[in-house]
């Protein structure tokens, strides 16, 4: 229990689901060989970390940020610019990650101090505006960021697909740099997830939840709510930055679409709500379900769309077109907010915990 910070899943069904997910992720290169399944598994890890860091803000502290994808982008661009400019090396990678973390935390501190003083609703609006401006800035500063084309770069040799850890295969799978990359992503995500779990179960985390439930009472008890909210913002930004750095490392590429697009922000919001706000495990369960659905349900939608088109139905082909995947996601999201505010985790735990 130490490793889970005393915050067990508290439900057999949820534990079983989490064990399946974790085992599948840990053994993914051996269970599901091939490039696509490995990509899906890496995405699940990265999103689980990204969403867990977002949940620290939304679920535990009760503030809505639209700049989470911006911090994700800072991490991705930090790695991209460092590796592109300095060449593939561990030193460059470390420098990029450190610089990105510094920039993210400074930005989060500025936004937090600035807009959390007045009203939390300011925070939602200010982060939206700042994230939008950052997005435009990133595509305009093409000398640094590569503009709309983004930056492709080389990763350290050990992580390149051509690298072999040893000749021959382990359980029929060659241990290439790609597999090592995957395990690096998995290990960092798992470690940071446990850190986040530790944070929300610390006295600091309890204060955050108290602020979420009743800011006035928390303040009356002597907690400086601006300090706590701002610190939560900075921690959450750091988590997102790490996820962004891993994502860049995995893709060998960073561009506006993969690192800063608003649709990533929407995805994160949807995953938090579907997984369950205010529970770190929701991030893992939600990310796994969402990424699987995104990768395999869209194909189904394409078939539905063409079937409807052949049957000569109006409008329907448009509605089921794979590009309209967000439409159904949005509907699911609204229904989840109304009817299942505790998400998958709440349902599996069978308790109607209050999430406000």
């Amino acid at each position, binding site marked *: 229990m130490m490793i889970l910070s005393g915050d067990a899943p508290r439900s057999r069904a949820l534990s079983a689901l989490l064990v399946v997910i974790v085992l599948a992720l840990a053994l993914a290169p051996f269970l599901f060989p091939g490039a696509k399944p490995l990509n899906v598994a890496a995405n699940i890890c990265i999103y689980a970390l990204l969403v867990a860091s977002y949940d620290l803000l939304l679920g535990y502290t009760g503030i809505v940020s639209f700049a989470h994808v911006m911090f994700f982008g800072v991490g991705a661009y930090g790695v991209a610019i460092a590796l592109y400019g300095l060449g593939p090396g561990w030193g460059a990678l470390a420098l990029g990650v450190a610089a990105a973390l510094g920039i993210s935390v400074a930005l989060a501190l500025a936004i937090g101090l600035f807009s959390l003083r*007045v009203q939390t609703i300011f925070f939602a*609006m200010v982060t939206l505006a700042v994230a939008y401006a950052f997005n435009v800035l990133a595509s*305009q500063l093409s000398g640094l960021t590569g503009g709309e084309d983004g930056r492709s770069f080389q990763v350290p040799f050990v992580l390149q697909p051509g690298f072999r850890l040893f000749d021959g295969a382990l359980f029929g799978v060659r241990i290439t740099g790609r597999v090592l990359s995957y395990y690096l992503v998995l290990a960092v995500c798992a470690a940071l997830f446990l850190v986040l779990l530790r944070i929300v179960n610390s006295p600091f985390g309890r204060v955050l939840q108290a602020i979420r439930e009743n800011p006035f009472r928390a303040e009356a008890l002597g907690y400086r709510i601006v300090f706590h909210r701002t610190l939560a913002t900075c921690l959450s930004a750091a988590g997102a930055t790490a996820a962004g750095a891993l994502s860049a490392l995995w893709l060998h590429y960073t561009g506006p679409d993969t690192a800063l697009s608003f649709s990533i922000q*929407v995805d994160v919001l949807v995953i938090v709500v579907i997984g369950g706000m205010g529970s770190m495990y929701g991030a893992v369960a939600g990310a796994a379900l969402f990424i699987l659905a995104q990768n395999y349900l869209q194909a189904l939608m394409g078939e539905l769309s063409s079937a409807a088109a052949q049957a000569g139905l109006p*409008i329907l082909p448009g509605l089921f077109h794979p590009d*309209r995947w967000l*439409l159904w*996601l*949005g509907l699911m*999201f609204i229904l989840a907010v109304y009817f299942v505010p505790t998400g998958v985790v709440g349902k599996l735990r069978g308790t109607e915990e209050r999430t406000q």
Partner: protein
Amino acid sequence: MSDTDTGAALPRRRIDIAPALTPLLVAALAAPFIGSPSTFLTLTVAGLAMGMMIFTMASGLTLVFGLMDVLNFGHGAFISLGAYVATLVLLPLAAWSQADSLGLNLGVLLLALLAAGVVCAAAGFVFERVLIVPVYGQHLKQILVTIGGAIVAEQLLYALFGPQQIPLPLPTAFRGSIILGDAAIEKYRIVATFIGLLVFAAQILILDRTKIGLLIRAGVENREMVEALGYRIDRLFVGVFMAGSGLAGLGGVLWAFYREQVHASMGGELLVLTFIVIIVGGLGSVGGCFTGAVLVALIANYAGFLAPKLALVSNILLMVVVLLWRPRGLYPVSGR
């Protein structure tokens, strides 16, 4: 501008003039850097026109927030919807729009505005009843639900109208520019400024001189008291929400004619701008929204000329400066 805040309160509140003068200050500061008077005039008129269009969109948002305490992240979807309605109106009336007659051209523009206003108000009715009614008083859920609504609405627009950009040509009479000395001023910008001013005047008159306006202002100040006096506040809510959505539609049409094209993503981009405007102006204040819109648009135009790469960041900087001066915006509304 104090009329939006207190109105007929006794003793009459002193008019807070300083924030209203900020656009003049900005213009005066920018003038020496721009140099040429004709360029300055062109930029200023462009800024005013842009400001009026943004004001039309943002005023609906700020009213809804002021009265209902609902921040509608789906507001952008109504902006896009209005623009698409305009394309639908112009399709059968292309002959009117191409005709070389000011009357017919103006008729087409007004019809497009009217249709967009009505359709968006109707859509706003559905949006309020279905999505927002269950989450009154819960900020977090409101933000989530309206974001969800915005996503669904934008995707529906894509599904119905297709993902491509739809051209929306200006009616003949509004094309081209008037040459004033050395400065070229686009005709449509004058039209847009005029319409925006009309909207502002109508809002001030309604809020200040009618019983409905009195109730809305009272509701902004103290919702429970209005209810206790026997008025159906929920009807007021839905009415104001419809008006706000209709205004978003009007703004969307004006903007679409200005850009001469329509795309479903325009709503999201403009939503960012309207947020900045209502934060700068003070959440819930129509007068503040007006000042904020002019300020944002002027600065965007001056910055776009002087330092193009800074144009978007300039809005954020403006917001920072204003909030450092007045943490609740230029015209803070009491009780918020």
